[in-house]
């Protein structure tokens, strides 16, 4: 099963490689990983999407906890939480499809952040379902390039851990 795990870590050099090295060294999957500083620049927050059976996920959580630079591990999958990912997608529609692209971008609350004669670059933010749906719709129209941030996740307020 897929799990989203957030890590509160020391904001030091080498922490990212400790975390990613743990996954590669022990043969765990890593589907996406994002890192950023927290309000306190001493710490950073990571969000990792991984998959495995229950025993593997338990090991991943424990192994992450064991890293000295990792202060807190939360497997948010087990709690009510919000996940978001952002993508930037460059579309090359045929002229007769341009209106459809703009229309769909609107429905998905995307933003056109760049356009040229033949391309639109659209920013979309959302959970996995929404992102996948949008990519699915754009595929037949023509995707030139796609970049994604990987997921970030946060617990809903009032959720006890």
């Amino acid at each position, binding site marked *: 099963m897929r799990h989203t795990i957030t890590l509160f*870590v*020391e904001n030091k*050099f*080498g922490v990212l490689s*400790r975390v990613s090295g743990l996954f590669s060294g022990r043969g765990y999957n890593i589907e996406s990983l994002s890192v950023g500083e927290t309000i306190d620049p001493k710490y950073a927050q990571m969000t990792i999407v991984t998959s495995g059976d229950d025993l593997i996920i338990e*090991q991943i959580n424990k192994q992450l906890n*064991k890293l*000295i630079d990792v*202060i807190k591990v939360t497997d948010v999958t087990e709690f009510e939480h919000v996940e978001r990912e952002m993508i930037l997608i460059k579309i090359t529609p045929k002229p007769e499809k341009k209106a459809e692209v703009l229309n769909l971008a609107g429905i998905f609350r995307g933003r056109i952040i760049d356009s040229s004669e033949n391309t639109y670059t659209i920013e979309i933010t959302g959970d996995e379902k929404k992102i996948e749906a949008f990519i699915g719709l754009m595929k037949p129209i023509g995707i030139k390039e796609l970049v994604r941030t990987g997921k970030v996740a946060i617990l809903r307020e009032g959720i006890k851990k």
Partner: protein
Amino acid sequence: MKITGAEILIESLKKEGVKYIFGYPGGVVLNIFDMLYEEKDINLILTRHEQGAVHAADGYARASGKPGVVLVTSGPGATNTVTGIATAAMDSIPLVVITGQVPTMLIGNDAFQEADIVGITRPCTKHNYLVKDVNELARTIKEAFIIATSGRPGPVLIDLPKDVTVGKAEFVWPEKLDIEGYKPKYEGNKWMISQAAGMIEKSKKAVIVAGGGVVISAAHKELKELAEMAQIPVTTTLMGIGCFPETHKLSLGMPGMHGTYYANKAIQEADLLIALGMRFDDRVTGKVDAFAPNASIIHVDIDPTSIRKNVRVDVPIVGDVKKVLSVLNKVLKTESKGQWTQVRKAWLNQVEQWKKERPLSYTKSDQVIKPQFVVEKIYELTRGDAIITTEVGQNQMWAAQFYKYDKPRTFISSGGLGTMGFGFPAAIGAQFAFPDKLVIDIAGDGSIQMNIQELATAVLNKLPVKVAILNNGFLGMVRQWQELFFGERYSHTQLDIVPDFVKVAESYQAAGLRATKPSEVEPVLKEGLFKIKKPVFMDFQVDWTEKVFPMVPAGAPIDHMLFDEPREEKQKKLKVVK
């Protein structure tokens, strides 16, 4: 007053009570070595190879329970420590390894003797540091010692760029320190412990499997109390050897691949398995799905990742074995009414039967020296009052099987990594910890050649370390597998040239002795162990056809054991495939 990083390092090590550093000099650590030139409180022990230095520090730590300290130069000095560090990591041994590094300005430039040792050792240290600011140095050293020695111990590496050791700062030693992301849990969960007690009371056929964690937490008394009170037989893993007396009636010896028949049988038939400070290594479990098929499992370990990593567990208890056992024993004591002897009677009878059925044995001979005979003799002559280290291979297994260990920290062996070349430098380290004890490395002729240069270290430091080489002219354990599973095709396991170990020893100003017949074994041992007061190589030319039994083939359930066929006395002709 501001002092240099090198001075801060030495002062910090003194604060930690360090007496010995095992090390080797080089360019970027020259200024640290210069500090040690006239240093009185700390001795730098110059080994002849950095790997030897780490194993020596490791042997010191295993024998004494105190952290071992290593100091080497950057680049090749640092990379030479890797095998030693990985060896310590696998067996949870506290080490602080200090490596020199090129100046911070040059890091990343492929400078002369630059190696990214922090990157290289990340997966085989408990934690590691690159110190970039001399003001951080004292705190980092303190952290390193805390991390190395607490929780599940392990090696910690500190990489020190040249400019950091030259730079100056105030020396501020933090007496206490909080490491935010590091909170080992010592106390076991009370409710879980009471569950465990309940299961012990209900069980008829319980067995304890005790590992290295019992040695580390010094829980041998608590273990004995539990075993005797609840009448539970105890098997000790390779790392746990000595934490329960092997001369005790309830002792089953070692389990697993080369474990005793009765230990493996007991595990497979048990209705309750109490795993203490052990991690269900594949050499212990054999085929994991078929391991202890009828047993509920209680697992006590200080490292949460050890629990449910390899086997299912019914009662997981994260905590220090000593603390957990003292609570558990208390609970059991209040609830027990002297019923145990009755409850366990049938089970202990069964265990006795297994012991009688197939004791550890070998075919004796008065023509050729049997390696097992040498180990038995060592036990007999020392009466078990020695620290035994081992190399890796058959020598290691025979040392585990045919000597009876009654005290913790008297059997020192590379369990997890299985590092050939470990035993001799480890014996040197152990001898530093206990100068007056008899320290014996039981070795193979292959392994001893991997760190043979440390003879110089032993001689120079007047350490009377004894090495009993079970010389079979082969990489014996590999040869054994080739004989059993590869149709006797001895591909590259015959050591065509084995040096004359007597001469090697003498050339280093140590003593050398040789036995080629069974009748010479005892005289050589008496002379080597008790008369000669310097390092000794004892070359026992043993029957090369001997194999370690019982043996569970890799991947088989642990009760599928191979045994030695009773053989006629005949030295097979060497069959060598070139």
